[in-house]
């Protein structure tokens, strides 16, 4: 039994197809990265799976419980951290945690113990008795996740948990999520940051326009677009043809001239073949002055580009 099992989820808003027949399986204890650009349907899936939104059709089970038939039982099995840090700003971190504990019917002793434990785990002990209004963005998110964990949920949903955080807080949040994954918590993580999915997720589902367009491990996805590439820059444009001929025997596909350059070539290579030193030697031999050589694993951004023909996050493309 999977922790999350959804099939054929459809949700239309008028003409907009937020979900258009989405299937999703998340094995127990794994971290699934749900990846896609803004408006791809990521948040809609999370809202359906967390009982906040009824789909037009399709089925979904959390920990074996039917989301549509038995939402209240599903709610007892999930934790949700949405796009906003949903904390009561005028209460302290500790009070926020105890509030959720009270809703979940922990007795006063268990409530206090659980709050203390989570404050420690999320590095909030010092701030525990300050009102959340004065917390930094990163602290709020950590409190938010801690609140989602009070009930020991079978599945934790994190909807864009690092959106709007500064780089340092983002890395702190990654460490938190990595620890959750290591503890065996099942996590469904949505993000538009490819680097984030790359770092945190055991497996990735790429969605676009409400359907799944690819799935697999990070490496599997990268392999689908052809593995490593070598990229060389030489000093003078007039040597470019000679360089091309020098490289030809070392690579496994077409050699492309970079679109906005007259001195940079790139081509796919076989992984781990010591191509770089041989390429440098060959280029030297043909008289082209080498300025730069690099071998690059494709990023998830490349994957998304090749799957959809567009970048995942236009203005904030994150390179690994």
């Amino acid at each position, binding site marked *: 039994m999977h922790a999350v099992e959804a099939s054929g989820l459809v949700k239309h808003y008028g003409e907009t197809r937020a979900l258009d027949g989405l299937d999703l399986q998340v094995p127990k204890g794994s971290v699934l990265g749900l990846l896609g650009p803004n408006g791809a349907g990521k948040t809609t899936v999370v*809202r359906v799976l*967390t*009982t*906040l*939104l*009824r789909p037009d059709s399709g089925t979904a089970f959390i920990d074996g419980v039917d989301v549509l038939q*038995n*939402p*209240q*039982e*599903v*709610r*007892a099995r*999930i934790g*949700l951290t*949405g*796009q*906003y*840090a*949903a*904390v*009561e*700003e*005028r*209460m302290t971190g500790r*009070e926020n945690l105890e*509030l*959720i504990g*009270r*809703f*979940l*019917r*922990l007795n006063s002793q*268990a409530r206090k*113990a*659980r709050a203390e*434990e989570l404050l420690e785990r999320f590095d909030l002990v010092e701030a525990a008795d300050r*009102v959340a209004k004065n917390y930094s963005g990163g602290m709020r998110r950590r409190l938010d996740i801690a*609140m989602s964990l009070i*009930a*020991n949920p079978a599945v934790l949903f994190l909807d864009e948990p690092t959106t709007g955080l500064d780089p340092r807080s983002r890395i702190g949040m990654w460490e938190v999520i990595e620890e959750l994954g290591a*503890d065996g918590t099942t996590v469904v993580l949505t993000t538009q940051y490819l680097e984030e999915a790359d770092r945190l997720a055991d497996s990735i589902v790429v969605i676009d326009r409400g359907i799944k367009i690819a799935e697999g491990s990070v490496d599997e996805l990268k392999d689908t677009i052809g593995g490593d590439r070598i990229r060389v820059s030489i000093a003078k444009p007039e040597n470019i043809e000679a360089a091309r001929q020098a490289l030809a025997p070392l690579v496994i596909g077409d050699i492309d001239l970079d679109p906005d350059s007259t001195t940079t070539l790139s081509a796919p290579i076989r992984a781990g073949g010591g191509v770089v030193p041989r390429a440098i030697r060959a280029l030297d031999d043909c008289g082209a002055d080498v300025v730069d050589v690099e071998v690059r694993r494709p990023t998830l951004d490349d994957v998304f580009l090749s799957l959809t023909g567009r970048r995942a996050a236009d203005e904030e493309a994150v390179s690994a």
Partner: protein
Amino acid sequence: MNNTAMAPQRTGKTTIADAWRDASTEATRHLRIIPRNPELLGFSLVQPIMFVLLFVYVFGGAIQIPGFASYNQFLIPGIFAQTLVFGSSFTAVGLAEDLSKGLVDRLRSLPIARSAVLVGRTFSDLARNAITFLVMLAVAFLVGFRFEGSLVAALGGTVLMLAFSYSFSWIQAWIGLSVGSVEAANAASFIWMFPITFLSSAFVDPSTMPDWLEPIANHNPFTRLANAARALYNGFDPGANLWWSIGWIIGITVVFSTLAIRKFSRAAS
């Protein structure tokens, strides 16, 4: 990290008793933070005090109402009623705020009663209104207002006004969940209450209004409330106004709590 020891963990079953406990947990959240937002508390008290003083000193000398020793005795119950009804707008604004911050989603994803958030919110706003009332009453006494009837009748009038504003809290809950933002909730919760409270018998006798307006004022539920409360504070028989008021309170509460809870179950942030 073993948490099974911390059970009983809540399951999805929700009884009536659970619903009340959830509502009271939610009400506690709001009541706890009232003193932590002193500006809001301050402003919510300044307005009623200002209204009592302005009306008494600005209009008090100019208006005579037959059958009343002073305009104050006529006017002050009306100001009480208006201020308490205005107080219901806290419900709309507070809910819109929770909605915009994602707190409503968090609460909706918990295995708690669907009614809890709204019942808790409306009850805590009722408590807030009771505080407002006590402050207003003190100011009214300072400017010479007196209970002319029995204490029991005065208490009855007070309960009636608080219950009426409670029923309006459900209208406000529905508004707060329907509009898109806190700013919109601010406006949408307030604007319509001006005609409701002024096109009534709260401040003047409707027979002094233009012919076309008088029947509107007479059939306004707020007129029923103002008349009933005024009678109870001044030692008259409230007559049918009392029953009309109770009828409106029940009717509004039933209709709008149904609408609001249904809206809540589907609300999107």
